[in-house]
């Protein structure tokens, strides 16, 4: 028997198609507004997920492909803190409380600090960037994210000369994340907290986006509210969600999926059609909404901008 669950979204919450089609005008208007001194205060007021969030489109790095429909991008994703099914995050999202929220930035930095989400929202001008997202499971989407380069935040903390890597940690709270609850029968799941990591130069790369919104809205809970990163040239699981701690370190961090299955998921996890996952091919992918598979591009199509980070490295070895 198939049990149909009521979606957590009311249809009224989904962006109206007419508005969506006029998004460029909307964004242009929003950009003008953002210049006004009111901007900061407004950002503070728009707390709940789904509230509109103003940003200026960064056309230089944005994909020209049509974005995946909002419904798919918010109801089909992996976020094991909620559960292992792709429908679990949207179904159970209400239990996460993205406010109040603070992020600790520490480790090898001159200025360790704890920043509130409202401070984080106004730290740098918000940009809209349309990136393609390639999941390690061989499906992909095109998503208009909102945020600013992670480098803006890292620079504020002033990494010391010893800092070589950045370690990110997701919130642990079984009350808010049902997937983290331990019962007699819950022998699956991952070891919490979820940890991800980047080399410092990857983290400082202008494409690496500290993300607080998508589709013109505050980030929905199921997509990693209130803030996550997006690293478009790496498999999706590297783009860690609901971050509470950013730590600068000298050694390569032990990251969650690498610990779980080291022969399947490497630290780098750059999108690479020539290095198969041991159990399936990475040569092609299905873009959500498409019927036929398409070829996967090296570095998910961002090779021009990021391949130089890996000069001289054997990407079959450092997968």
């Amino acid at each position, binding site marked *: 028997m*198939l049990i149909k669950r009521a979606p957590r979204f009311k249809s009224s919450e989904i962006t109206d198609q007419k508005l969506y089609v006029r998004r460029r005008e909307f964004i242009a208007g929003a950009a003008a507004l953002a210049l006004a001194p009111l901007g900061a205060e407004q950002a503070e007021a728009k707390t709940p997920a789904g509230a509109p969030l103003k940003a200026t489109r960064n056309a230089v790095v944005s994909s020209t492909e049509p974005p995946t429909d909002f419904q798919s*991008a918010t109801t089909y994703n992996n976020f094991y803190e909620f559960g292992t099914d792709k429908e679990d995050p949207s179904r159970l999202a209400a239990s996460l409380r993205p406010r109040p929220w603070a992020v600790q930035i520490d480790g090898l930095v001159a200025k360790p600090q704890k920043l509130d989400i409202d401070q984080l929202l106004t730290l740098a001008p918000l940009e809209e960037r349309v990136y393609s997202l390639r999941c390690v499971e061989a499906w992909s989407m095109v998503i208009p994210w909102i945020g600013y380069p992670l480098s803006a935040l890292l620079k504020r903390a002033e990494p010391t000369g010893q800092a070589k890597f950045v370690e990110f940690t997701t919130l642990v709270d079984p009350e808010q994340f049902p997937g983290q609850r331990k019962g007699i029968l819950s*022998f699956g799941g991952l070891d919490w907290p979820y940890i991800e990591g980047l080399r410092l130069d990857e983290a400082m790369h202008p494409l690496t986006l500290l993300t607080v919104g998508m589709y013109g809205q505050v980030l929905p809970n199921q997509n990693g509210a209130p803030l996550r990163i997006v690293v478009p040239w790496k498999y999706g699981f590297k783009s860690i969600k609901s971050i509470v701690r950013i730590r600068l370190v000298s050694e390569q961090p032990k990251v969650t999926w690498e610990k*779980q299955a080291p022969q399947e998921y490497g630290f780098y996890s750059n999108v690479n059609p020539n290095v198969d996952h041991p*159990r399936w091919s990475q040569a092609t992918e299905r873009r959500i909404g498409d019927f036929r598979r398409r070829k996967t591009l090296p570095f998910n199509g961002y090779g021009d901008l990021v391949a130089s980070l890996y000069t001289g490295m054997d990407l079959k070895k450092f997968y």
Partner: protein
Amino acid sequence: MRGQTPWVVWAVCLAPLAMLGYQAWANDLGANPISYLTNTLGDWAFRILLASLAMTPLRIVFGWSWPIRLRRLLGLFAFTYAALHFGVWIVLDQFFDWPAMAADIAKRPYITVGMAALVLLIPLAATSTKGMIKRLGGRAWNRLHSLVYAIGVLAALHFFWLAKKARTEPYWYALVLAVLLATRLWEWGRRRLARRHAAAPVVSRAASSGSR
């Protein structure tokens, strides 16, 4: 109930297919319809296969005879779902990309064992008629159809190897399979023991009955 049981099997086994049909018509197969179809058909193929493997244990444990009459229909439905699962993979997922599929069957253990399970189901489905049982003879037919145990194990491996490590479902399916196979092993052992007892010298039997 007796006469109606096959209809219950028909209804239960066709319901998932009807549901998929409805969802397809209502455009309600989710964000990744091809993956959803493949997974749902595969789930039901395995579930119905386990149901068919549960009929003999029901007889062993409860002494019922009616489950045995449902075995063939359940087996044929398991084959139907497995074939549809495979069909979706060929047509919708890979879209007749034969070289890619051949490479996957050879290179990916989970696809290799899944393919093997399906291929092994074919002779079982083909010899499921009364006529074929007669032609093969009960003994040979039984031996051929004990392949279903291997098919069960292959299906469990298929599920284990395709799922990400953090998932728990493959363990539950494997546990059910293990219980169903263990029941048979237990029954087989019990019978052997009983036979040995029956063949044992009269003295010891008399002695054991005397001690009662």
